[in-house]
């Protein structure tokens, strides 16, 4: 898998000097964070590719299945598994997480690289659901929001995508520029939940 945290590129040019552009991750320097029974970490999930089928949705679904071995997720669901996952990402849109998109996908709709547009965090621990209940207006009870369910909603004031990866594990995406605010908001909620002991 692509490790964007450590990746850097260097080139040689005709004039002979080396220029390096060092990559930074959205949460660089702010995570991980553990307060009480909740832990927040940055996830490096590889490529993020927006898939929006145009015309026949089935064609995109078939191509995805063939190239990456997973179905195109229905609304509020995800497919695949760790390392190669596809989550529903809004009206007519899915997010391929992990592999670089296969060339065959481009024939069936818009395929847009948004690897750097989102910050991806993992909130886990026995207090994770209580922490999210402080910030997310949607119903995340485990009876309603099961493993593999994936919704678009809000984290306090921010547009977000939330996927349940396990009984006490949630993957949260917000825009890259708001990574700091996500940490701020979650940190406050984690502290408040932890204070109840």
């Amino acid at each position, binding site marked *: 898998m692509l490790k964007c945290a450590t990746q850097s590129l260097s080139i040689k040019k005709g004039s002979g000097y080396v220029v390096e552009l060092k990559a930074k991750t959205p949460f660089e320097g702010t995570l991980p964070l553990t307060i009480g029974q909740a832990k927040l970490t940055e996830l490096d999930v590889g490529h993020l590719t927006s898939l929006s089928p145009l015309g026949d949705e089935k064609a995109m679904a078939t191509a995805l299945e063939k190239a990456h071995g997973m179905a195109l997720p229905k609304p*509020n669901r995800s497919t695949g598994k760790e390392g190669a996952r596809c989550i529903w990402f*809004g*009206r007519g849109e899915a997010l391929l997480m992990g592999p670089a998109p296969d060339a065959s996908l481009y024939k069936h709709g818009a395929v847009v690289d948004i690897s750097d547009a989102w910050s991806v965090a993992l909130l886990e621990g026995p207090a994770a659901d209580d922490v999210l209940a402080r910030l997310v*207006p949607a119903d995340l009870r485990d009876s309603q929001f099961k493993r593999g369910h994936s*919704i678009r*909603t809000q984290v306090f004031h921010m*547009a977000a995508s939330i996927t349940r990866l396990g009984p006490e594990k949630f993957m949260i995406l917000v825009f890259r520029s708001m990574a700091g605010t996500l940490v701020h908001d979650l940190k406050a909620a984690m502290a408040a939940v932890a204070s109840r002991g």
Partner: protein
Amino acid sequence: MRIECPICGSRDRREFYYQGAAVALDRPAPDAGEAAWDSYVHLRENPAGETRDLWHHEGGCGSWLVVTRDTVTHAVHKVELASDVKGAMS
């Protein structure tokens, strides 16, 4: 208040952006004349009772919705995808 998004399910009202009357779906032809355009852009009913609004599920899936609701009881009777409603109009 909650709105049952046909795609996302029942959601808190804060995920939605309110636009106004669903009249906006019925855009007149460029040559429809002054009265039609005036009506489309400016004139709105203010019913005590059933009304049809456009809401945008901005904090969710991004769908525009036609919400049929009662301004007196605040009951929401029906929520449809605006694209379906528009599709059925033509």
